């Protein structure tokens, strides 16, 4: 039954991925004129000679004189074998440019998700069990501010405090020594030492909203008769809360994590830009500003896929936790 559900859910993700690719391609073709006119204009601007033969070759390759659907088909069949087209600005195949950046984006998103979960779960329980205590008020206060402050503002303020009061630079994901170095365990350790700052910044608002959800869910459960019964039977308070009400309250909590994932990826774009992280965000932005549409399209497509997969994972988790979902 569970397997059937997971299978069905994965099948559902396919049309979503297809739609995401259509949207990404629509964005690629959205700017006025085709990309080659933009390309030629950029070349001419920088004083390069526009090689007509090369333009024609590119036009031929992407079928720019063909209708939208044909162009889309050519593009997507390339994507499926890992060919995302050529970046005009970098003069390199897109797949070479995005590989490591996407990997770091995924790492960042998952690290943030783990952080959010690890923090929101105990704090949410605490804040519901000790309702209206000083701790609860503090948590609620921080939560409201976390929800109201845009990610990038938190990043900016943090950077300001670090530079002005501590003289430290918190931007980037690697120390200078490791920026260009090949991957090694020492580099991974260096990454982990830098990762926590963007993780906290990114996780703040989703943690805040998850705490509120967990608190509200648990508050609904705590006053139900079965809790009183269990308490009357002499179950220890910790065991009692963790075993019954928390398990019921967890359900909406897990389903919210599915929505939190696209939100995280979205927020990561801006925060990464402010902190100049070597993830996909800054390069995406640069590509969009330069109208380097193949590069931008590849990023948008991959970020969308990432968040659809994130939702898929959380739906499967939800089915594992709550048996009722599988039968729907």
């Amino acid at each position, binding site marked *: 039954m569970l397997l059937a559900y997971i299978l069905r859910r994965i099948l559902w993700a396919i049309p979503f991925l297809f*739609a995401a690719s259509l949207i990404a391609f629509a964005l690629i073709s959205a700017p006025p004129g085709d990309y080659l006119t933009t390309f030629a204009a950029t070349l001419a601007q920088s004083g390069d000679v526009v090689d007509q033969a090369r333009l024609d070759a590119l036009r031929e390759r992407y079928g720019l004189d063909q209708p939208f659907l044909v162009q889309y088909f050519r593009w997507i069949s390339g994507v499926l074998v890992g060919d995302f087209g050529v970046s005009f600005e970098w003069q390199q195949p897109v797949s070479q440019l995005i590989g490591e950046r996407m990997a770091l984006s995924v790492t960042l998103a998952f690290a943030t998700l783990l952080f959010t979960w690890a923090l929101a779960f105990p704090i949410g329980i605490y804040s519901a069990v000790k309702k209206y205590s000083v701790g609860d008020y503090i948590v609620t206060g921080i939560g409201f501010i976390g929800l109201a*402050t845009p990610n990038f*503002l938190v990043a900016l303020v943090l950077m300001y405090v670090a530079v002005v009061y501590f003289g430290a630079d918190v931007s980037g994901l690697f120390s200078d020594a490791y920026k260009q170095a090949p991957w090694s365990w020492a580099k991974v350790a260096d990454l982990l030492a830098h990762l926590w700052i963007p993780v906290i910044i990114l996780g703040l608002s989703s943690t805040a909203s998850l705490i509120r959800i967990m608190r509200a869910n648990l508050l609904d459960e705590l006053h139900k008769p079965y809790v009183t019964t269990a308490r009357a039977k002499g179950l220890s308070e910790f065991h009692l809360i963790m075993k019954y009400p928390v398990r019921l309250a967890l359900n909406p909590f897990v389903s919210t994590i599915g929505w939190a994932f696209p939100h995280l990826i979205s927020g990561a774009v801006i925060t990464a830009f402010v902190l100049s992280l070597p993830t996909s965000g800054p390069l995406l932005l640069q590509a969009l500003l330069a109208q380097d549409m193949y590069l931008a399209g590849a990023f948008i497509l991959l970020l*969308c896929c990432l968040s659809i997969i994130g939702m898929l994972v959380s739906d499967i988790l939800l089915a594992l936790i709550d048996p009722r979902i599988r039968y729907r």
Partner: protein
Amino acid sequence: MTATVDPRLLTTSVDDQASQWRLIWIAFRRHRLAMTGAIIVLTLYFIGAFAEFLAPFDPNASSSKDIYHPPQMLRLIDVDANGDWALRLHVESMRAQRDKFTLETKFVPDPSAKVYVSFFGKGDSYKLWGLIPMERHLIAPAKPGERFYLLGADRLGRDMLSRIIHGTRVSMSIGLIGVSLSLMLGLILGGISGYYGGLIDMAVQRVVELILSLPTIPLWLGLSAALPQTWSPLQRYFAITVILSLVAWTELARVVRGRFLALRNEDFVIAARLDGGSTRRIIFRHMMPSMMSHIIAAVTLAIPVMIIAETSLSFLGLGLMPPTISWGVLLKEAQNIRSIAQAPWLFAPGAAVCLAVLSLNFLGDGLRDAADPYVQDSR
């Protein structure tokens, strides 16, 4: 002789009945945070509406000698050299001084010179709402031509306070207009989906799910990057609003659909249908009034999302662009660490964003609780 009572006169007066709106108002008034939020939100919209009058200066007037001028305190008690004092609104002037070694410009207070400030004084001339020519400002320097900076100045020596006040108009209105657009989309699609159910419902729900599962900021960025660079500020403003509402309608559609599904089988709706009411009449006469309060709450909660989105887009340079002034455009100035280390007051528009979002959230939460008759009265 007993007086006969005409039963038609036995109506309760309006004061004795509590309509649903009245009940909501009573519940809402008890919610202190929400009331505070409501007052702040109204104030912000007021500031937005009368931006030209409330701002002391023209937001685009630059002053080359006041680059990164620090904020000045508004003082009331004016003590002159003889020790006499009077109540006069003024600020202490500041003088630019160049450090001999680092060549860094620093502003030091200059107690000898004062800039007097008058209420409703004449300042830069402007046209209120582009129509009424005026030159009075709420506060203006008493001597024309003088300048003061209550929230500091930016890299071109423009008054931050005036810029933030003008930004309020754009940022707060983009939320309002964007939400009205998404409300239209949400009402139509959510309504159709909830009222008819079946296949249509299924299709709309899948679209909503798809949009919710996509990361919004990359999409917004992509869409706004596709806007032609040659568009006028006004065209761009509306285009950005449309882009924001293309994503934001989903949440409203969900609320509307949920309410429609819940109401569809209520007795009064079935009764209306059996009485032969047309679909339009049933929706607008019978279902709408009981959905209104929920929709208003959902709309209030959608505005801050829009404001944050606009701020983020403009901050990245893909949303609104100068000469348009919005909080996001202003925050773009605070992008590099060197300028904020030198002029921390460039963060001030960020405080405005937080204040607006926070109070709109409180207001929306309060409205939602007040509109829900089943909410536990445990506040």
